[in-house]
């Protein structure tokens, strides 16, 4: 998918420029490459610092507090899962807790484990269960407490208050999550 999009962006771009708007490609290549390298160099510093803070969350067990907080809502969102496969619920909660803290490296293994556990109690092995669909949907809304990359880039580009987007981002994620959960209930009957 992304391959096609990338190809067509350049293909259409070059064709358009031939037809309407001849541009100097060597300049574009040079400028594009240079600005990306500058961006990456300043990202190196800020990302390193945020990752350091997140590592402390992981190692200190702070993530377990999030586990405790998240466990109850997850029990409600995944009814009866606790009795069918408790490990699945554990991995789901750990995945979401890691995602909330922006620990995507930690989140992915938990997510895959959660899917494996859900697959164990899945009656039809090549079709997604209701639990799986719900887990993916909650995961897609991805409530992130500190969007470190966005803050870093905003700081790098000279925003007046780089972290001012934190609260709006959390609210937006929550809205996305609610919409997704409602839609899931509606669509469920059409996709059996």
């Amino acid at each position, binding site marked *: 998918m*992304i391959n096609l999009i990338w190809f067509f*962006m*350049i293909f*259409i*771009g070059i064709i358009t*420029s031939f037809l309407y*708007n001849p*541009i100097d490609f060597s300049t*574009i290549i040079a*400028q*594009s*490459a240079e600005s*990306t*390298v500058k961006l990456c160099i300043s990202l*190196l510093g800020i*990302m*390193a*610092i*945020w*990752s*350091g803070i*997140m*590592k*402390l969350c992981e*190692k*200190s067990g702070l993530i377990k507090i999030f586990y405790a907080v998240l466990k109850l809502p997850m029990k409600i969102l995944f009814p009866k899962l606790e009795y069918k496969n408790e490990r699945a619920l554990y991995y789901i909660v750990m995945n979401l807790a890691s995602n909330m803290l922006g620990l995507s490296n930690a989140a992915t293994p938990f997510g*895959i484990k959660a*899917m494996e556990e859900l697959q164990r109690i*899945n009656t039809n092995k090549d*079709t*997604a269960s209701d639990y*799986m*669909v719900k*887990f993916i*949907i909650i*995961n*897609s809304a*991805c409530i992130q407490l*500190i*969007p470190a990359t966005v*803050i870093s*880039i*905003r700081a790098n580009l000279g925003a*007046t*208050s780089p*972290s*001012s*987007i934190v*609260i*709006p981002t959390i609210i*937006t*994620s929550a*809205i*996305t999550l609610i*919409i*997704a959960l409602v*839609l*899931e209930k509606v*669509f469920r009957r059409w*996709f059996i």
Partner: protein
Amino acid sequence: MISKYFIPLFILFVLIYSVFKGIKVYEVFVEGAKEGLKTVFNIAPYLLTMLFAIDVFRRSGALNGFINLLAPVTKFLNIPDGVLPMILIKPLSGSGAISVMTDIMKTYGVDSTEGLIAAIIMGSSETIFYTISLYFGSIGVKKIRHALIVALIAHFISSVIVCNFILNFL
């Protein structure tokens, strides 16, 4: 306003908690910083590749043509022209979305309406296609039912809500 205190308080809380738990804060921090550097090295080639395509697409005038084509829809939904590429790319590619967001911030200004909307969309939804292919792929499930369609519709609706909210209240 709240955000201004949120970050320092969060950092303070993490540090105090870690010290309280007997964590070697300095060493663990360094360990995390190493991972952060690796992350940037990992995404750098993707950024370079995607920003190049975006530059070609935008500076040739193709992007403007595309935006004009979709103008009736975006006008109806109150989506600013500049933000449209962000809404379209976010579900497909995380690194692509970072590139588009950076591009929007550079073009319109980091604190502009467009810049703010792009930042919020970036942080508030996941790379849906990646998540779905990774998680369902890992267990060999082929029929994903309504997972993709629901995630995508929710992403579009909430993006439209963000645009309208920022446009009306800022």
